[in-house]
C-alpha cells in the first residue's frame, strides 16, 4: 500500500499549498476557538462588559445547576440509545442493500435521503407523524384499536426524538458499512458455502469480524454526533419561547450564552462536553486495540 503514493519534489510543494487553507482554517477556527472557550470558561462574562476572572466557579456551579444536570442526563440517555441504534440499524440496512436486488439504487437513495434533507423541514414532517390528536402514528394505532400515545410529551419525547435521530443517521452509517462490506473478498463466502455455512453463520463468522473497523469507526462518529445532537431534538421538543421539553447539553450551552448572558458558564459546559467525548474516545481507542480486526 505504501509504495508509489508518496508525494515527490514539486508535488510536495503543491500538496502543502493545497492543504494550507484547510490547515489554516482548522488551526484558527477549531483550535483557536477551543482555546478561547477554555479561557472563557474561567471567567464571568456577559459579552457586553469586560470578562472577570472566576477561577473554577463556573465548573463548580455546573454541579449545582439542576437545569444543566437535567440536560447532561438527557444527553447521556440519548447517547446510550442512539449509538447502538445507529450502528445496528445502519449495519442491517447496509447488509440488505449489499444484495443484488432489483431497484436497489432506489432504496439506497431513499435511505440516504434524510442525510441530505434539511433537519428543520424533516422535523416538521415528524411533528405531523407524532401529533397527539392529529398525528399519523396515533391514527394508525387507533385504527388498530390501540390507545393513542402522546409521543412528544415529556415522558415519551426522549424516545421519540431518538428514533428520529437514528432515522436521520441511517444513510451515512449505511455508506460506511457498504464500503466495509464490499471490501470483504467474495472467496471467503464461497469457501464457507462449500463447507455448508448458512446465511446467519456467514454473517456472524465472516461479515461481522471483517467489518469491525467500520463498526468501530461508526461507533466513534455516532458518539460524537450524539453529544452534539441538537436540530431534530430542538425542533420536536421546543415549547414557548426558546424552551425545550428535552433539553440537551448543546441546548443548555446555547441558552446560557445567548439568553442568560452567562458566557463563562456556557463555555464551562462546552469544555466539559469536550472532556466527556475525549474520555470516551480514549476508551474506544483502547478497545480498538483489543477487538478490532484489520486485515
Amino acid at each position, binding site marked *: 500500500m505504501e509504495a508509489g503514493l508518496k508525494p515527490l519534489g514539486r508535488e510536495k510543494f503543491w500538496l502543502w499549498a493545497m492543504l494550507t487553507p484547510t490547515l489554516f482554517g482548522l488551526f484558527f477556527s477549531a483550535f483557536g476557538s477551543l482555546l478561547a472557550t477554555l479561557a472563557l470558561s474561567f471567567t464571568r462574562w*456577559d*459579552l*457586553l*462588559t469586560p470578562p472577570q476572572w472566576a477561577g473554577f466557579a463556573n465548573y463548580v456551579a455546573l454541579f449545582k445547576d439542576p437545569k444543566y444536570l437535567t440536560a447532561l442526563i438527557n444527553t447521556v440517555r440519548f447517547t446510550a440509545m442512539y449509538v447502538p441504534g445507529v450502528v445496528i440499524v445502519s449495519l442491517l440496512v447496509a447488509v440488505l442493500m449489499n444484495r443484488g436486488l432489483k431497484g436497489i439504487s432506489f432504496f439506497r437513495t431513499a435511505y440516504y435521503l434524510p442525510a441530505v434533507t434539511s433537519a428543520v423541514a424533516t422535523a416538521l414532517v415528524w*411533528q405531523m407523524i407524532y401529533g*397527539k*390528536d392529529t398525528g399519523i402514528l396515533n391514527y394508525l394505532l387507533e385504527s388498530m384499536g390501540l390507545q393513542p400515545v402522546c409521543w412528544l410529551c415529556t415522558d415519551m419525547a426522549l424516545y421519540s426524538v431518538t428514533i428520529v435521530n437514528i432515522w436521520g443517521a441511517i444513510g451515512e452509517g449505511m455508506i460506511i458499512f457498504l464500503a466495509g462490506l464490499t471490501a470483504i473478498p467474495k472467496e471467503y463466502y464461497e469457501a464457507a458455502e462449500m463447507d455448508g455455512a448458512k446465511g446467519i453463520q456467514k454473517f456472524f463468522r465472516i461479515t461481522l469480524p471483517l467489518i469491525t473497523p467500520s463498526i468501530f469507526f461508526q461507533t466513534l462518529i455516532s458518539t460524537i454526533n450524539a453529544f452534539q445532537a441538537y436540530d431534530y431534538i430542538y425542533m420536536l421538543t421546543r415549547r*414557548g419561547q426558546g424552551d425545550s421539553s428535552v433539553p440537551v447539553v448543546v441546548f443548555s450551552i446555547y441558552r446560557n450564552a445567548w439568553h*442568560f448572558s452567562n458566557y463563562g458558564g456556557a463555555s464551562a459546559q462546552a469544555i466539559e462536553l469536550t472532556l466527556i467525548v475525549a474520555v470516551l474516545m480514549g476508551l474506544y481507542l483502547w478497545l480498538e486495540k483489543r477487538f478490532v480486526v484489520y486485515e
Partner: protein
Amino acid sequence: MKRTLFSLILVLILALTACAQAGGKPAASGGPVEIRFMAWGDPAELEVWKQIVADFEKENANVKVSVEVSDWDSYWTKLKTLLAANTPPDIFAIDAPLYKDYQARGVLLNLKPYLDANPGLLDGLYPVTLKAYETPEGYFGLPRDFQTIVVFYNKDMFDAAGVPYPQQGWTYDDLREIARKLTRDTNGDGKVDQYGFYADLWDMELIWSEGIWAYGGDVINADATRTLIGTPEARKAWKLFHDMIFVDGSWPDANTAAQYGGDPFLAGVAAMTTIGHWAIPGYAEASFKWDVAPMPAGPAGQATSVNSAGFVVAKATKYPQESFNFIKFVLSEKGQTRLAELGFACPVLKSVAESPAFLEQEVKVNHQVFLDSLAFARMKPSFKGYEEWSSVIGDGMSVVWTGEADLDATLDEVVKQADEVLAKNK
C-alpha cells in the same frame, strides 16, 4: 502551471478585498457620514424602514443610513456579537423588558444632552410608553411603537353558537363562561375539536400578567428583588387558567396547542385568544372573520399589558448627533405615519395613533381598542436579568400547562428559583 499560480493569486486578492470591505467604512471628514441601523423584523418591515430612511436622507443630505433587518432570534445573537466585538451598529432596536439589562451593562448612550437640546420633543408621545425608558440618569433609549394586549375573537364561531361578542366591561367569569359555551365537538366523533379560548402561557405578556393584575396581584416588586407570582391574589388567576384547561377543557393544553402550530386561534380551532397588534398582518390571512375586544375585568378591575419596542444608540458610536437625528425623525409625524402603515404596531405619537393612518389601516378591525386599552395598561417589567428570570418562570411553569405537574407546588418552586435569579443579578 502558470495559470494555476495566477488563479491562486487572484483568489487571494479577492479574499483580501472582501476582508477590507467588511473591515469598515472610511470616515472621511466632510464626506457623507454613514450610520448603521439594526432591527428585528420580516422583509415587509425592511421595506418600510428603507422608505423611512429614504425620507430621512432627503432631509439630511450628509447622512446615509444602512438598515439591517434580521429575524427575532438571530437579531439578538448578531447584536450581542457585534457589541462584544465593539463594532455595534450606531442605532439598534430594543424590546423594553430587555432595555434595562443592556443599560445596566453600560453599552448604551445617554440621550439626555440631545433631548435637552430638543425641548418638547417627547410631548406628543404616550407617557406610559416613555416610562419604560426612564432611568434616574435620563433616557438611554426611546420608544418607537407600542403593543397593548387585547382579546381577538372568531366572529364565525360566535355567530354559529349564537353567543354575543365580548363587550367592554366583561369579566374573567364571563370569559370562562363564553369559552365553555364555545367548546364543542363539531364533527360528532366524541372528541373536542373547537376550543373556547387559547393563549400562550410561557411569557407573561399574553395572558398571565393581565390576569394576575386583574385579580389584584402583581408579578414582581418595584425594585425587582422579589417575584410576586405566588401571592394568594396571583394564585386566583393561575387557578382560573388551570381550571379552564383541565376542568372545563375549554382551553387546549400546551401539547394540544403545539399540534396547531402553537396558535389554535389562527388555525381556526380556538374561538378567542389574547395577543397584540403584531398578530394582525398574520391573522388577516385567516379564512374566518374576526375582531378585537378589550381585556376582561377581574375583582381588582381591568388590566392589560403594554410593551414598547424602541431604539437605543450604542455608546461606542462615532456619530451620536446623526444617530439621534434619525431617531427624532422616526418619532416625527412623517416617520410614525410610515410605521403605522406597516400595520404591525401602534404609533407612540398620539397624533398619528389617533389619525386615519392607524385607525383606518388596511386590515379593518376595531383598532381603537388598542389605544383605549392604554387607560388600564400596566408596563411589562424591565430590569437586569429579565430574560433569565422570565425563562425560569416560563420553563418552570410549562410542565403545569402540559398537565404533568401540580400548579401550587410548581409555583412555589418557580418563585424560589426566580428569586435566586434576581439575587444573582443585583
